[in-house]
């Protein structure tokens, strides 16, 4: 379990996804434990990935703090307000729609190059939008990347949906927020995964408190997973700045397809999580 946690920590910290979609089924399959204990363990693990990686990414200048704080308001609200979309669609229908959307996004991310997405910090901006303008040094490309954030309203709405769906179909918000920030909002992929990691901890904390206060915590198991995740996230955060944006986007697209297929399998009743 420790080694699996290390691997999830590496992937999660590089791609800005919490890894809950992998942790929960693995814990229930390998250790045959109650799904609520698995969910609580997974939530603590997500906070560890978030805190470990975002501390390092803050140091590197990759996290867009103001954008992260703005979007996390909508994600947390979406998560807490409850499953709005279950009223409109059946969970299996949501899984199919999400599966299609994830695979489509993966293809789109590969077709549309990063340089065509980023809007450099040129031209006048309103006071509201200039607040989110940011820049960071990319050691892999050996240059300073400067960008404006576009489509802030669309991003806020998507973050709300991401938070809302997270409880409903067992996915963390990262898998939706990273492509939204990258493709729609023009945030470079490395800044998008770093900012997503920064946000994940806050969304997870809201749910983790509820699970723990209701007695669904196995401290020893959580400790083993948390230490593994910490080691993995430490390795992952040292890796991200060194790899090219193109490779990060390809790796993210692969994960999107994997999770998309997982969604189809869940809709067909082949996977339970």
């Amino acid at each position, binding site marked *: 379990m420790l080694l699996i946690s290390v691997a999830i920590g590496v992937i999660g910290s590089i791609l800005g996804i919490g890894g809950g979609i992998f942790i929960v089924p693995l814990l229930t399959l390998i250790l045959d434990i109650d799904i609520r204990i698995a969910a609580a363990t997974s939530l603590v693990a997500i906070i560890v990935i978030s805190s470990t990686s975002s501390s390092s990414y803050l140091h590197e200048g990759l996290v867009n703090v103001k954008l992260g704080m703005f979007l996390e308001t909508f994600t947390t609200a979406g998560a*807490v307000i409850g499953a709005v979309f279950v009223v409109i669609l059946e969970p299996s229908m949501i899984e199919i729609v999400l599966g299609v959307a994830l695979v489509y996004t993966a293809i789109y991310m590969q077709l549309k190059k990063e340089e065509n997405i980023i809007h450099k910090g040129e031209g006048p*901006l309103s006071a509201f939008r200039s*607040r989110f303008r940011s820049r960071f040094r990319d050691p892999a490309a050996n240059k300073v990347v400067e960008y404006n954030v576009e489509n802030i309203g669309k991003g806020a709405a998507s973050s709300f949906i991401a938070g809302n769906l997270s409880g409903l179909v067992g996915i963390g918000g990262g898998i939706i927020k990273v492509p939204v920030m990258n493709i729609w909002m023009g945030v470079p992929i490395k800044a998008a995964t770093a900012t997503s990691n920064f946000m994940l901890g806050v969304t997870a904390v809201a749910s983790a408190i509820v699970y723990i206060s209701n007695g669904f915590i196995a401290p020893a198991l959580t400790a083993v997973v948390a*230490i593994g995740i910490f080691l993995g996230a430490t390795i992952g955060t040292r890796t991200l700045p060194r790899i090219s944006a193109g490779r990060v986007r390809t790796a993210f697209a692969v994960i999107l397809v994997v999770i998309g297929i997982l969604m189809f399998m869940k809709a067909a009743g082949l996977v339970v999580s």
Partner: protein
Amino acid sequence: MTISREPVVDSNVKTVLYKILIAGILCAIIFLIIGLITLSSTPGVDITEELSLEELIEEITSLSAMGILGIGILLIIATPLIRILTTTIVFFKERDRFLVAISLIVLAIIAFGFIQGSA
């Protein structure tokens, strides 16, 4: 409406947050390692043993191996909360009312979720 061409870098909040997150998570991991080492010397341990909130508090106050693990887990959960409180204070000092409001909304949502979930 104000017009700006200057690239805005996320103020000095990044340095403060970096220190809080790294300190919080390192302290938590140290507690978890000490707890696991202490627990491994106890015979007949079940790694999947779950504790109710009352049992967890009892273990923490008696500083048992499970209690030390409990402190580590609570530190993990406290770290993002301290992060939000700190950003609220930093942005308040920087007089960015919009971000102060955003931070307070997030805290209120978490509190609401907690109250609703515990009820």
